[in-house]
């Protein structure tokens, strides 16, 4: 009944105290090993000295109290066994020195036998009780420490959202707890065990092989047989083993059962966090898949409608030309031919947009950025848009000293084409379109503005969604892709693109690009008389 509920203490120092906190010894102030017995006997000697002093004033029976005090102190300070040794020694010394006949172990008065018996029992009981209390206290402290460690780890892991972060946080925390390096190895998607975090640089091929074994056969795991070797702990995540925790020996000694118990708990917690990450990633993937599916059906419906409309027009016009050509008046033939060309152009634009979108979404091939004057690019784009602009006034406001900008000219040209094309499509014929560029701090601000109906309130951000057709846009032909592509392309350049309404009416798209560092300076032009005559 007095025996505390705990696994049999290992011989020698308690593992928890050694492994978990090197200061444990000094904190509890306990003397250990033979030293405890020596001190306990020293205490008996001190009691004897005190008893000699008190002998003159007290009956010998009262002196037993001093010895009892010594036994109690031994029990408190050194534990149960030293206390029992102290009790036996006390009885012997008391008998020898104070019980008549003195300086013999003989006992005249049999009453003293009772005294001895009671003294022994009291010593054992008190020693056991105090030792039990002390052990309970230590156990509670260990539990508290363990709870604190687990709590700290779970707090660390809670902040992690990726497998790598979990591995790093776990390695850091467990290293701190263990006071020795640890390494976290995780199973990769390809079914290999790869070092992920912690002291991965000290993993030898042998250790990696051991970890592999541990990963394949987690049931066979056990602490290392001899001190000085690393121990392997499986990191269980749900039903599978997500990885292996490699614990390097702390101070050259093997971790004891208490340590292993805590480490197992930490590994378990790491496994749970990994499982949580995996589930989160899976949910995200499922969400993305659903999103892709939604996009795909939107794409299909948009494409089937938008591709078929121009095709229908082309087929209709071409079949009329074929069937009735001699009968058709010249003007009608021209109108049909015109509509074929127009619709084919529209079809080409649509396909181009779809391709651009796909390219941008499937991780653009690296941008081919080059330093260039914006004017050069605008000129090319406006030249291509001559037909779409149909003689409408276009005002281009560029400061003379606008610096060169670093752009992928094709992709950015597509952006400007989309913005100016939109302005032309969604504003009344004949109204002015304004293109304006300026330097704003370390950014280039470029805007395309029209005098159309502008954006409906609440649509300012939605116009950049794929296949979104605004209230106004729904009336004009288009794919709902132009602005989405433009924003993606501008963002690929590190810039931003937003839609606004002009105060005096009309839509404005504002594009901002980081200007970056100036291009290398131009070589000065040779003076007139240095240059060779430019003939071939």
């Amino acid at each position, binding site marked *: 009944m007095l025996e505390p509920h705990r696994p049999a203490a290992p011989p020698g120092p308690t593992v928890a105290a050694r492994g978990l906190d090197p200061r444990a010894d000094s904190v509890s102030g306990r003397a250990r090993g033979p030293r405890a017995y020596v001190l306990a006997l020293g205490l008996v000697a001190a009691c004897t000295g005190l008893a000699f002093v008190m002998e003159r004033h007290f009956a010998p029976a009262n002196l037993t109290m001093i010895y009892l005090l010594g036994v109690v102190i031994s029990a408190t300070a050194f534990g149960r066994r030293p206390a029992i040794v102290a009790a036996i020694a006390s009885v012997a010394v008391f008998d020898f020195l104070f019980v008549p006949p003195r300086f013999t172990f003989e006992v005249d008065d049999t009453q003293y036998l009772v005294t001895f018996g009671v003294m022994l029992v009291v010593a054992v009981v008190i020693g056991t009780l105090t030792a039990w209390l002390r052990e309970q206290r230590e156990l509670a402290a260990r539990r508290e420490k363990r709870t604190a460690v687990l709590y700290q780890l779970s707090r660390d892991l809670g902040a992690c959202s990726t497998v790598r972060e979990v591995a790093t946080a776990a390695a850091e925390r467990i290293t701190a707890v263990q006071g020795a390096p640890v390494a976290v190895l995780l199973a990769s998607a390809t079914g290999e065990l790869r070092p992920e975090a912690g002291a991965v640089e000290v993993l030898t091929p042998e250790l990696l092989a051991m970890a592999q074994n541990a990963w394949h056969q987690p049931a066979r795991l056990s602490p290392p047989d001899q001190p000085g070797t690393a121990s392997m702990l499986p990191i269980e995540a749900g039903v599978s083993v997500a990885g292996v925790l490699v614990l390097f020996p702390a101070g050259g000694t093997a971790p004891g059962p208490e340590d292993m118990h805590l480490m197992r708990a930490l590994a378990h917690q790491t496994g749970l966090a990994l499982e949580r990450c995996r589930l989160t990633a899976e949910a995200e993937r499922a969400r993305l898949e659903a999103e892709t599916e939604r996009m795909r059906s939107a794409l299909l419906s948009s494409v089937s409608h938008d591709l078929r409309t121009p095709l229908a027009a082309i087929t209709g016009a071409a079949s009329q030309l074929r069937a009735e050509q001699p009968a058709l008046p010249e003007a009608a033939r021209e109108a049909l031919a015109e509509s074929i060309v127009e619709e084919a*152009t529209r079809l080409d634009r649509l396909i181009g947009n779809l391709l651009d979108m796909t390219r941008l979404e499937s991780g653009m091939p690296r941008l081919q950025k*080059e330093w260039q004057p914006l004017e050069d690019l*605008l*000129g090319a784009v406006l030249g291509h848009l001559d037909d779409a602009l149909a003689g409408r006034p276009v005002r281009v406001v560029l400061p003379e000293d606008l610096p060169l900008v670093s752009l992928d000219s094709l992709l950015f040209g597509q952006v400007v084409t989309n913005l100016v094309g939109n302005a032309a499509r969604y504003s009344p014929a004949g109204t002015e379109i304004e*293109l304006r560029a300026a330097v704003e701090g370390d950014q280039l601000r470029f805007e395309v503005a029209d005098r159309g109906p502008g954006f409906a309130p609440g649509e300012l951000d939605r116009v950049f969604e794929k296949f979104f057709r605004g209230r106004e846009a729904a009336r004009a032909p288009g794919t709902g892709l132009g602005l989405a592509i433009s924003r993606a392309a501008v963002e690929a350049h590190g810039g931003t693109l937003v839609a606004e309404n002009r105060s005096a009416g009309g839509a404005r798209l504002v594009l901002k690009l980081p200007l970056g560092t100036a291009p290398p300076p131009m070589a000065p032009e*040779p003076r*007139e008389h240095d240059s060779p005559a430019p003939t071939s």
Partner: protein
Amino acid sequence: MTADASRPRVLVIEDERAIQRFLRVGLDAEGYAVDEAATGREGLTLAAMHVPDVVLLDLGLPDRDGLSVLSGFREWSSVPVIVLTARGQEHDKVRALDAGADDYVTKPFSMPELLARIRVALRHRTLGADGAEDAVLDCGRVRVDLARRRVTVDERELSLTPLEFRLITTLARHAGRVLTHEFLLREVWGNAARGQAHYLRVYMSQLRRKVEADPTRPRILLTELGVGYRMKDS
């Protein structure tokens, strides 16, 4: 197709039937003699047999890379080659031009556009053939008087720096044809300027301000995005 010696001969190397068909109709109507090949090998054989005046070469052939067909031609012939490419293959266009193609058109293209390119190519062929160069390059609105180092636009004389003069001369000499950045840099700045395309772009902007009525809406010095520059021919 009756082979008429007086008609310019166009070799079309293109595997798409639909495109072949409308090219034949359009070229025929314009008075060209047309040879057709659907593969690169066939094209090279036909070129050796009939010596065309212009070659239209599709870059996406079934049997071999269009660029290798092009360099096959260039080993023994200086016949003008116009490359037919798809949108988004600017890199291929530049490579084809640098490998000796004279021009390109991007599919889908209009027949008048293609015919204009063919005319430019044929004219340069006759120019190149007689070896000597005119003292005056007349490109419609722009006239370059090489001997007197004078450049006029619509009879208005321009004051140009030496590099601007060299740039506009190079463009005028190849008027109507697209010139790649690499080519222009080499011709105007020499080999030291390789890869410094922004030199060219800055000078082009300067030149436009002198040549064009509205430099943001150029009508003479045209930019081919991602490829190079072209001076509009008369």
